[in-house]
């Protein structure tokens, strides 16, 4: 099996934020923490593109490299996880991550920065799979339930794909070949017309 990966098709993403909502609901993610978010480029301009972003579970993860307490680890499926019992909440990983994946809950009387929280690819953490302790710290462990990440599985337009890197890239490649064209076939162009039409009016 190849490494687990996310792949987002910018031609299909309609910025519905369903993936964000699914993630928050599935894992009871606290206020102020977004493990996943939708980023829109040229927002409001005809032809804008959106993409859903979370931890990319990098093969050579910079968060792992800079962590001073070595709380990160990688599973056999290539999912980058961390141990919250070791994390000291220093924030180095958030500076190192190019995607802004590490999040820090800021609850408490003095707004203290808590331990780091990030997308787990719905693979939980080092606690016993499916245990209450794992759910409380990391959320649901869907991989150990034979499922893929909730964000990708419930994406309404199937813009966000998640799973074995070889499989999702095959799905995406086949899709691109079949549609054969850009956004005029599927996505913004279908919904709102070609970008050039928007700029003329």
């Amino acid at each position, binding site marked *: 099996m190849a490494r687990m990966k996310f792949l987002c098709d910018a031609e299909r993403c309609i910025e519905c934020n369903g993936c964000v909502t699914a993630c928050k609901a599935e894992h009871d993610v606290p206020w102020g923490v977004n493990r996943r978010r939708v980023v829109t480029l040229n927002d409001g301009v005809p032809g804008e593109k959106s993409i859903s972003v979370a931890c990319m579970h990098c093969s050579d993860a910079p968060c792992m490299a800079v962590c001073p307490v070595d709380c990160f680890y990688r599973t056999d*499926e290539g999912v980058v996880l961390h141990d919250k019992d070791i994390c000291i909440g220093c924030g180095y990983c958030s500076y190192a991550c190019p995607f802004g994946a590490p999040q820090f809950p800021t609850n408490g009387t003095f707004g203290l920065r808590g331990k780091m929280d990030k997308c787990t690819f719905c693979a939980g953490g080092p606690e016993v*799979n499916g245990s209450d302790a794992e759910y409380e710290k990391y959320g649901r462990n869907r991989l150990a339930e*034979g499922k893929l990440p909730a964000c990708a599985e419930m994406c309404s337009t*199937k813009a966000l794909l998640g*799973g074995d890197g070889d499989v999702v890239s095959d799905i995406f490649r086949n899709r691109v070949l079949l549609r054969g064209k850009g956004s005029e076939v599927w996505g913004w162009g279908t919904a709102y017309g070609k970008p050039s039409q928007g700029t003329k009016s």
Partner: protein
Amino acid sequence: MNMRSTIAMAMMAACAAGCGDKPQTASAAKKADGKAWDMAQSNHVAEGWKAGDQASWEAQMRLRAQGQNEYSRSAAAVAVAPTKTP
């Protein structure tokens, strides 16, 4: 209410505030994570694979991923899809 009872109540409230804390244990050693194919102790496990069988779990993951491929789900789409893919 005099000053002494006020102070006493404030002290009691401060002491009681600690009662809500859950016991915590600090372990410096990194824990070993369980394998995903060992199956979670959950009532929501998907059917179609066997616990402890890595090949079965991987097959389940590939099958599950095809749920994201509308070209394999829709008969009409399959009909128009080319038979040869690179």
